[in-house]
C-alpha cells in the first residue's frame, strides 16, 4: 500500500465520516486503498482492463454499503471481500481476456521482513510465477489466489465462491500441481 500512512484511529474516523455521506472522507479512503484493491482485482481476473472496472465498481459498491459497515473487521478486509465479490460478478459476465500482467509492479519486499538475498531470489522468479498464475484456469486461480496469496480459509473460499469445501480443496490441489509443473517442468529447473 502506498500513499500517506493513516493510523487505525484516523481510518476509523474516515470510515465514520464516509458512512455519514462525507465523500471527501471516502475519497481519502479510496486514495489510501486504491493500489491494494486494484491488485486484488488484477490477481482475481488476470486482466488489467477488467481489473480497473472491477476495482472502480468495488469502491462504488463500498460507498453505497458503507452506512451499514459496522466496523467489526478492518476497512481493508471489508474492501478486500467486496473486491473479490465484484470480481466474481464481472467474471461471470465477461469472458476473460489476457493482457500482460507483469509491468508497472510496485514491490515492497521489506514489508514482509524478507532478507535481501531471499527478496532478490523471490523477485527473480516472480515474473514466472505471475505468468503461471495468470495462465491458470479461472476456477483454479481464484482458489489459489485466495488461499495461498491472501490466506483465506477453505470455509471462507467455499462461502464466497459458492462451492463446497471439498471442491475448494480439489481446486487448490490441482492449481498447485499446475503451477508446480509450469515452474519446474516446462520452463526447466529454477536456480
Amino acid at each position: 500500500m502506498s500513499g500517506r500512512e493513516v493510523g487505525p484511529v484516523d481510518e476509523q474516523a474516515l470510515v465514520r465520516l464516509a458512512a455519514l455521506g462525507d465523500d471527501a472522507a471516502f475519497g481519502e479512503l479510496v486514495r489510501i486503498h486504491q493500489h491494494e484493491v486494484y491488485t486484488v482485482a488484477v490477481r482475481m481476473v488476470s486482466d488489467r482492463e477488467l481489473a480497473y472496472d472491477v476495482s472502480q465498481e468495488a469502491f462504488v459498491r463500498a460507498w453505497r454499503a458503507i452506512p451499514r459497515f459496522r466496523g467489526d473487521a478492518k476497512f481493508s478486509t471489508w474492501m478486500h471481500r467486496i473486491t473479490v465479490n465484484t470480481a466474481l460478478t464481472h467474471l461471470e459476465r465477461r469472458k476473460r481476456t489476457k493482457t500482460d500482467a507483469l509491468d508497472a509492479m510496485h514491490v515492497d519486499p521489506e514489508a514482509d521482513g524478507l532478507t535481501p538475498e531471499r527478496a532478490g531470489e523471490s523477485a527473480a522468479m516472480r515474473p514466472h510465477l505471475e505468468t503461471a498464475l495468470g495462465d491458470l484456469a479461472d476456477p483454479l486461480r481464484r482458489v489459489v489466489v485466495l488461499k495461498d496469496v491472501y490466506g483465506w480459509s477453505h470455509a471462507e473460499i467455499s462461502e464466497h465462491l459458492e462451492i463446497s469445501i471439498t471442491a475448494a480443496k480439489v481446486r487448490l490441489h490441482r492449481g498447485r500441481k499446475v503451477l508446480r509443473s509450469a515452474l519446474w517442468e516446462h520452463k526447466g529447473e529454477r536456480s
Partner: protein
Amino acid sequence: MNATCRIVAMRLPDIGDPSELGSRLARHTASCLRCQAEAARYRSLRRDLAELSTVTYQAPQGFVSSVMGRLTDPVIEVARRTRQTVKSRVVAVAAASAAVVATAGTLALIVRRLQAPV
C-alpha cells in the same frame, strides 16, 4: 520413481511439510532425494505465492478521481434512484393489493352473514 514416490507426489500439493505425510511416507521421504526435491519445490511455491501478497500493482493514474466521479455520476444516481422508486412502487402496489383483497374478503363475509337465514 517407485509407487511410494508417486503416493508422496500426490499428497505433497496438500501439505505444508513432509512430516505431515504420516510416519511411513515421512520415513520414505527422509531417505529419498527425489521426494525431498519435490517437497522443496512445493514449499518454495507456497512461500513464493504468500510473498505475492506484499507485491502491489499501481492503480492507473486518475483512479481516485474516476471513482469519485462515479459516486456522483448522474446516470448512476438516476439508475439507483429509479431502482429505489421501482422497488418502493412495487411494495406500495403489493400493499394496496393486499388491502383490497382483505377488504373484499371482509365485505363478502359480512354479506354472506347478512344473507344467511336466521
